[in-house]
């Protein structure tokens, strides 16, 4: 589904990704862990097409298409979704209007019929039920004045609505207390399916107690230095990133 080979990328002239190899198959959940500055968020942003990241070498293909030449909206239309670490507040932009514009943009790009107001609201209600959310967030401006937990839930709600093939969760656990974390994790788990792959980017192991990954990768200095099962996350938790860094330097 996603194949990344030898990816190198600069931010502000500084090389952050230094030859990253990574691939995800259909339905798989991969966790990417790593210390601050290892390049986790940069990787997520490069995949989603954010400006300001300069890819200098390597490739990233999504279902056979070269991802790196596409605009951010084209990537989303193909089925890529980024749940932001810091969801952006859009004052004055109504959440329902936003969700409808997003869904219809994607449907249109795929040549499918757009939803009218009635069928859209029906769909929204259905998705809210799956995630056990109430509809108060629909009437508000996108993320404006939302608490940290509400913002993250809104991200997962968007994901439920847009039904991506590949979702990248960028430090979705950051800034959440344990209750909010559980709500978000439950939402993510409800969206797991054999057709949907996920990349869970996180600093801490605790999110992985709730979202069980198939594969855990450790990122350090812009490269994946170790991959393994979910026991790797526990080992990291126990020994700390110093252990990996020390090994990485030794290697």
């Amino acid at each position, binding site marked *: 589904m996603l194949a990344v080979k030898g990816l190198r990328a600069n931010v502000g002239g500084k090389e952050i990704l230094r030859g990253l190899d990574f691939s995800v198959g259909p339905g798989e959940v991969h966790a990417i862990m790593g210390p601050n500055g290892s390049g986790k968020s940069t990787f997520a942003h490069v995949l*989603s*097409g954010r400006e300001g990241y300069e890819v200098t070498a390597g490739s990233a293909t999504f279902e056979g298409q070269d991802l790196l030449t596409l605009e951010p*909206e084209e990537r989303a239309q193909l089925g890529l979704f980024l749940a932001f670490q810091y969801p*952006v507040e859009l004052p004055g932009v109504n959440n329902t209007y936003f969700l409808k514009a997003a869904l219809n*943009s*994607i449907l249109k790009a795929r040549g499918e019929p757009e939803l009218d107001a009635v069928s859209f609201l029906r769909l929204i209600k259905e998705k809210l039920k799956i995630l056990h959310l109430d509809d108060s967030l629909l009437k508000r401006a996108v993320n404006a004045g939302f608490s940290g937990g509400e913002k993250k839930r809104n991200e997962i709600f968007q994901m439920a609505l847009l039904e991506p093939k590949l979702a990248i969760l960028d430090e979705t656990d950051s800034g959440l207390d344990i209750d909010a974390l559980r709500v978000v994790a439950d939402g993510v788990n409800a969206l797991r399916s054999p057709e949907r792959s996920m990349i869970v980017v996180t600093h801490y192991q605790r999110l992985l107690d709730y979202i069980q990954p198939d594969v855990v990768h450790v990122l350090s200095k812009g490269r994946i230095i170790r991959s393994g099962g979910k026991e790797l996350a526990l080992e990291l938790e126990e020994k700390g990133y110093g252990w990996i860094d020390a090994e990485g330097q030794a290697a």
Partner: protein
Amino acid sequence: MNGVLPNGFESWLSAAPERPAGVGPDWLDDQRRVAQEQVRAQSVPTSKTEDWRYTSLKGLLEQGFAQVDESITALQPDDLEEILIPGLDSHRVVLVNGRYAPELSVLGDLPKGVRLGGLRALLDADPDALRERLNRIAGDRQPLFLALNTAGLDDGFVALFDRAVMLERPIELIHLSVGMDEPRVAQPRHLIVLGDGAQATLIERYVSLGESLYCTNSVLEISLGRDAVLQHDRIQMESANAFHLTGLYLSQDANSRYRGVNIGLGARWARTELVTRFRGEQAECDLQGLYLAGDRQLMDYHLDVAHSVPRCTSRENFKGILYGKGRAVFDGLVSVARDAQKSDAAMSNRNLMLSESAEVDTKPQLEINADDVKCSHGTTVGRIEPEMLFYLRSRGISAPLARRMLCLGFAGEIIQTLSAEALREHVSEQVGQRLESAPLN
């Protein structure tokens, strides 16, 4: 030099007060004559005139506008179809090229104590009814365009509310312009008087049939008695080739509340002057504004809010979206007199620039002569945040649509202060349409 140089506005005066003999009160003729003299005594403002520093009158003078001298009677109610706002239920007063058009107006049932309609009709029916009211608020030393309007004073819109009268449905004043063979200037004069405790909503719309060249120089005198409440939505959607001037003179007695929402979307050159005078304590004046200025377009706002008595509150909140080679001017003055303690004023002007070549000159000013007041002002000129744009695009929304959504979000704060949902939808749609055709650099 005054009076020596022809000031270029003779053509506006020429046909002005030539009304049928025997019609119209003498007192009005006197006022017109005084105003004509005031016009002739003034020279054309230039860039050296402080109030006109950023706004040139050259383009306006080049057109050689002449006063409208005939009524348009050929319009049928069907012709209004494209102009009416679906779902807006109102007492409708229509003016065509500045003249009251009873055949197009639908006043509906009015409660006792409300007089609504055309200025000339009221003057003809009851010549002295307006003697103490018309041309009072605006003052004796009239600036050029006010004096021009008074000199040509002939018709317009009148709403008179006795004390404690409330009107549930809004009054909709449609000022419709229809192109003539030669470029014409219409100078409607509107008078709105609310007695003590009266309440009303007025929706004032400037629209056109076609994209013709004309000029509107409208003046409103609004007087609110004690405890009176007026919500006043103003939607300027003149033809893209039109020139538009508004002078709004507002007088507020104690405890009265005024909210004016000024939406400026049309005209190639538009200037709006809003002048507020508090006559009694604890009055509130809330001025909201939204303007779009695109290629070849100028939007110019001048605010003059004088806190001359204590304990009054004013808000001045204007937002602009500029694109292409659009230009805007915001010149806001809030003054607080020495005795006007406990005055509360907050002025803000925020601008969203969608292109490199757009320009805004913003000048909010506070002149405070009292010591126990709460006054603030702020101004911003910014661009669309790349973070916001990326967020929307990452959800599959194209860059142009994402920009429009963000602009509408920016404008929404002002749009939502309009009085009716149908009106809010109408304005959002119009703003969206204009942004859709806006060049992005």
